[in-house]
């Protein structure tokens, strides 16, 4: 019902009743998030896209370079039971910040998912999502799963660009995974081959996808809205269909869609907020039932916990680092 009510901006708190936020409450919750989790920051974005109901320097929230080691596919192959256990344990930590059982009860969450799928979205652009992912194979003639870059047109042969004039000094002080010369030709220091061997072994850096996750305030739904900006192992931007690989299957094709980020003007994937308020309302109610007083400034912690069901392999931070 809230969804249909297009108010200018929400001015009185309806957090407890409807699970929604006023812009002021969004700022309050964002302040606590950035305070407790230093990886999250407030951003101002493109000044020409500022919205007036939020402070100039607090237009949206951002966390950068969040690692994402696995695709959802691999996670879902793992035993579901063990996953449920993990979540359970996490939630039972006595003095932890919040949320008695936000996602602990798997059955409830399953219910949510079914709800979402069967829900008609009364939005100006209803259910854009299903079309999005059905497409990629059409665009992509040479169905290469891993190297589908070709889709974007001709990939130039970068060997053409090799500049033979740039020959860099052999430098024994550079650690790089390709530094194969360390043990053999390091001039000037023959007394330490052993140690260098060891050092080379220590470049165990894993090449992984990373995400920039941003949270904007959605005036229409009066909830936060989550945006995903993904990069592959070589820091190249992920294409939308690749991002879907990191979204839980139950949600990928139903709740995630593409649009232009309101403060950056760049198109990217976002999690459709149409059900956010209802889920938040449920979580808040459950908190009350368990005798905890829901705090509006902790909204985003609760919210991010719920979002982690949608993007289970993206390891963003949403726990309180220092207990207060």
């Amino acid at each position: 019902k809230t969804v249909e009510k297009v108010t200018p901006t929400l001015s009185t708190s309806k957090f407890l009743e409807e699970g929604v936020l006023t812009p002021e409450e969004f700022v309050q919750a964002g302040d606590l998030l950035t305070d407790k989790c230093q990886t999250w920051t407030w951003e101002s974005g493109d000044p020409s896209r500022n919205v007036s109901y939020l402070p100039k320097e607090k237009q949206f929230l951002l966390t950068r370079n969040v690692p994402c080691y696995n695709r959802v596919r691999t996670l879902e192959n793992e035993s579901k039971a063990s996953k449920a256990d993990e979540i359970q344990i996490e939630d039972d930590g006595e003095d932890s910040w919040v949320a008695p059982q936000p996602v602990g009860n798997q059955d409830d969450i399953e219910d949510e998912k079914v709800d979402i799928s069967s829900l008609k979205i009364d939005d100006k652009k209803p259910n854009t999502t299903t079309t999005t992912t059905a497409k990629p194979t059409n665009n992509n003639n040479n169905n290469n799963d891993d190297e589908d870059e070709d889709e974007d047109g001709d990939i130039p042969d970068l060997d053409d660009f090799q500049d033979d004039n740039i020959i860099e000094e052999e430098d024994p002080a550079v650690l790089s995974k390709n530094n194969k010369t360390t043990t053999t030709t390091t001039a000037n220091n023959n007394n330490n081959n052993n140690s260098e061997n060891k050092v080379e072994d220590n470049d165990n850096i894993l090449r992984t996808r990373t995400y920039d996750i941003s949270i904007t305030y959605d005036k229409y739904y009066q909830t936060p809205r989550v945006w995903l900006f993904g990069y592959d192992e070589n820091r190249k931007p992920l294409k939308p269909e690749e991002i879907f690989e990191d979204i839980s299957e139950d949600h990928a094709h139903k709740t995630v869609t593409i649009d232009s980020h309101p403060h950056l003007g760049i198109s990217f994937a976002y999690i459709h907020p149409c059900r956010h308020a209802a889920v938040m309302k449920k979580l808040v109610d459950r908190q009350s039932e368990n005798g905890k007083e829901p705090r509006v400034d902790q909204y985003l912690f609760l919210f991010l916990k719920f979002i982690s069901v949608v993007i289970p392999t993206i390891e963003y931070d949403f726990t309180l680092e220092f207990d207060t």
Partner: protein
Amino acid sequence: MTNTLQFKEFSSFVNISFWHELSNKKLDELKLSEESIPLNGHYTFSPSQQLDPFLCLEFNAFLRNNVTNSTENQYVLPPRSYLSHGTLYNYNTVDDFKQSPKIKLFNDASKRIWNDINNGNIDKDTSLLNRFILLTYADIKNHQFYYMFGIPALLPSQPIQQFTEKPESINIESLKSFSNQILPQYFCLKQQQQESSTTTTTSFELIGSIEEKGNQYLNECLENDLIPLVGFCDPCSLPLNPGWPLRNFLIYLSIKYPMLKKIKVLCYRGNGSTSNSILLSLELPSMGEQLIKKQQEEDAGEWSGKSVGWEKDSNGKIAPRFVSLASTMDPLKLAEQSV
């Protein structure tokens, strides 16, 4: 026992928003100009043990640092991030890009660092030790970008050596207070050591930034024959290796304090827990008199000392990188996606 200290190179990380901004700039302002443009890049602590140290560029990279009029937006570093000064050379055609005087541009940047060390600019602003160049060809019609990064590190006459006398460990507790404050990029530290039969445990206390306290502190240490302890904010997270920003800093110290032979360095890693910070004991080389002399003789010319730091591809070759953003920039593809 000594061994050569190895540094972990930066990986460039160009945010999509930067390419958008470059495209807009090219259309609206730069047009066919190939003049160099100052950029602001930043690095921060590695969020995870398993990520490369990143040098990042975002949409705001073109904003200036010292804005005096109110119409212009000022560049603001993301929190807990540190500045790297960049220069962009954007070319109009692939051929121009290919034939650009890369070595000269790289040497120019190296020389600026060298000059800033020698003329005292670094004393006032240590961030000038971190420079990069970015060469680009932006094919804005097809939303394709070719680019190369060079992040120069000046080479000492001899590689810097690590020495160990007795195993040392860090008192993690003493670093806790660091995570609640804005740390300078480079700083000096007071140490307190607790000896046991097998190890030394060191606690740290911040004295101040190099700009504020460095001169006084380092001279005091030299007078009293103490090994100074400095620290820097390290984007690397490897257990034995520091990141790239330490390189030019050590060069700076060895030029500025020729009597300084040994130094201890705290590589502070501020990601969540500070427990993977490391402590290094280093022997500084004399910065090679021949290098300094050579430099003075050819002062008018190009940098003639040595430096390294071109970004390599996955095969370890120095080659340009390529990115296509058609799927997020091309209006036609976007229309397809958002039916």
